[in-house]
């Protein structure tokens, strides 16, 4: 009996060696930092001990909203970019449907490959490219518009604040359209072809097939992605809004993620930056569950 147990332990030991260290690594980097949320509740200065810092309750949470125009700007821009993202979220689906309609196989593949590429470059490269295309002195776009007499003189697109929301949304679509469409193409490909054949026998045209077979077929995928987007309403990401930031467009491009960075790592106000992070997480959880509840009411079945 004892022998068998020892035998078993001996067998399991290498498996434990293969898994436990990596498990602990994940716990260290994903779960351990959660205790850092405590910083949002204490008067902490970098370099001091967190435990000995004075506990101030929800003081910093109250401060978020009284921080004035900085926070209001960041919050407004965050909501604008997220709302635009949600409104435009059917675009990749539409693009996937158009690609799927192409019968010329090579061309279909070519479009998929080429349009997915911008997804795999960093925002710094995107910025560099936009800079060269939109710059005042030598920008291709400016030269084109001036030569076509649409503009009298070159226009500084990247430093024009009223254009920022539109321009950044456009750039973001340029980068992600093709890649986001691939998941829908995968969903479309998994629809049973017999359904189309049956519809054709019944005399349904292409458009009717799209409406009654394809769209219902990809709806679950769309719903899941939409729900995730709603959960991420307050996190538009950092990269894009950091690289395109400049003093002229700052009031229109600063989002919560860049604001948190500035507050935390530049101004070293750790508690306030953390409080915003905690606030974001709380809102995100509430949003996901609310959206799921609404979805459940409408469709009878939730996603989570």
């Amino acid at each position, binding site marked *: 009996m004892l022998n068998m147990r020892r035998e078993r332990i001996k067998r399991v030991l290498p498996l434990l060696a293969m898994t436990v260290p*990596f498990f602990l690594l994940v716990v260290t980097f994903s779960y351990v930092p959660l205790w850092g*949320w405590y910083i949002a509740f204490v008067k902490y200065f970098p370099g001091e001990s967190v435990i000995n810092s004075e506990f101030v309750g929800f003081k910093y949470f109250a401060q978020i909203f009284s921080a004035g125009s900085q926070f209001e700007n960041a919050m407004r821009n965050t909501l604008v970019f997220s709302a635009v993202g949600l409104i435009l979220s059917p675009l990749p689906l539409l693009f996937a449907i158009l690609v799927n309609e192409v019968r010329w196989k090579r061309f279909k593949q070519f479009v998929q490959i080429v349009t997915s590429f911008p997804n*795999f470059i960093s925002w710094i490269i995107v910025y560099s490219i936009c800079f060269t295309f939109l710059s005042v002195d030598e920008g291709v776009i400016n030269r084109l518009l001036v030569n076509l007499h649409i503009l009298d003189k070159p226009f500084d697109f990247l430093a024009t604040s009223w254009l920022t929301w539109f321009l950044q949304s456009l750039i973001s679509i340029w980068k992600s359209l093709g890649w986001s469409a691939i998941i829908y193409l995968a969903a479309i490909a998994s629809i049973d072809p017999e359904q189309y054949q049956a519809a054709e026998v019944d005399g349904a045209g292409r458009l009717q097939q799209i409406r009654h077979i394809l769209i219902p077929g990809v709806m679950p995928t769309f719903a899941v992605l939409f729900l995730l987007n709603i959960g991420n309403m307050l996190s538009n990401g950092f990269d894009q809004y950091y690289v395109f930031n400049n003093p002229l467009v700052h009031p229109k491009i600063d989002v919560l993620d860049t604001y948190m*960075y500035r507050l*935390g790592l530049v101004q070293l106000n750790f508690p306030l930056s953390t409080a915003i992070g905690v606030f974001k997480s709380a809102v995100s959880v509430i949003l996901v569950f609310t959206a799921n509840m609404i979805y459940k009411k409408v469709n009878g079945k939730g996603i989570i």
Partner: protein
Amino acid sequence: MNYSKRYKVFELANVVLLFLIGFASLYPFYYIIIYSISDPMQASSGIGLWPKGFTSQNYQTVLKIDNLAHATFISIARTVIGTLLTVVCTAMFAYGLTKPILPMRKFMYRTVVISMYISAGLIPAYLLITELQLKNTFLVYIIPMIIVPFYLILIKTYMEDLPAEMEESAFVEGAGYFTVFRKIAFPLSMPILATVAIFQGVNQWNSWVDNLYYATDSNLMTLQLMLLNLIQTQSVSASVIDSNLVNTIKVTPLSLQMTITVVVVLPILLVYPYFQRFFIKGIMLGAVKG
């Protein structure tokens, strides 16, 4: 117009539209490449589809930029070392998790999967990195990314579908788990491991936010962040351009910026034609399993 005729018109319009979208995706990259090999003076008066006045002067000048070689070295090092470690460690973790005799394997797996949806945020992560003494070390580019939950899901799912007979006969011959992993499970999982390696390679090469947050030491500067600094301060050139005056071909700040951009994007551009099918496969798998 009857229906099939209308559909033909739609098909043609569709192809034209998709061609234009494809062009808009590709042309910017083509443009910076032809610009970087053109004579900057001629290029600045406008180029479209072909380079003007071919020259390698831009590239020769870029080589003279301080620290560029070092930043390239850092970027390559993090890409190679980071990718290798991620693939080997995630594969080993995944392999262990496929074995039913491992205690608490469901718990471990679930904890890792749930971690994808949890983020403590910027400052807590920063404090952890500081506490672990990873700040301003090369390891900050490697260690936090060793296990990527999404890859773990992909690899574990793949390994579960591998035929069990080969492993069993190896066990009968007295091989241990490590040997079986190294000689059987790892090689048999090559298709998914290649996908993961490419995902992570691109990821590592493109990473710069960790550089901005955790590594302020100029010795750890990556190519990406260096490019951003050069564009934002427009300091590409003052010194390098001066040293370049003796040449007949004059480089401009813009031509140098584009040349560096090409250098940063070229590795991805070169491997992309080979890896795009892996990506598509990978996401399909993710879509089915997710």
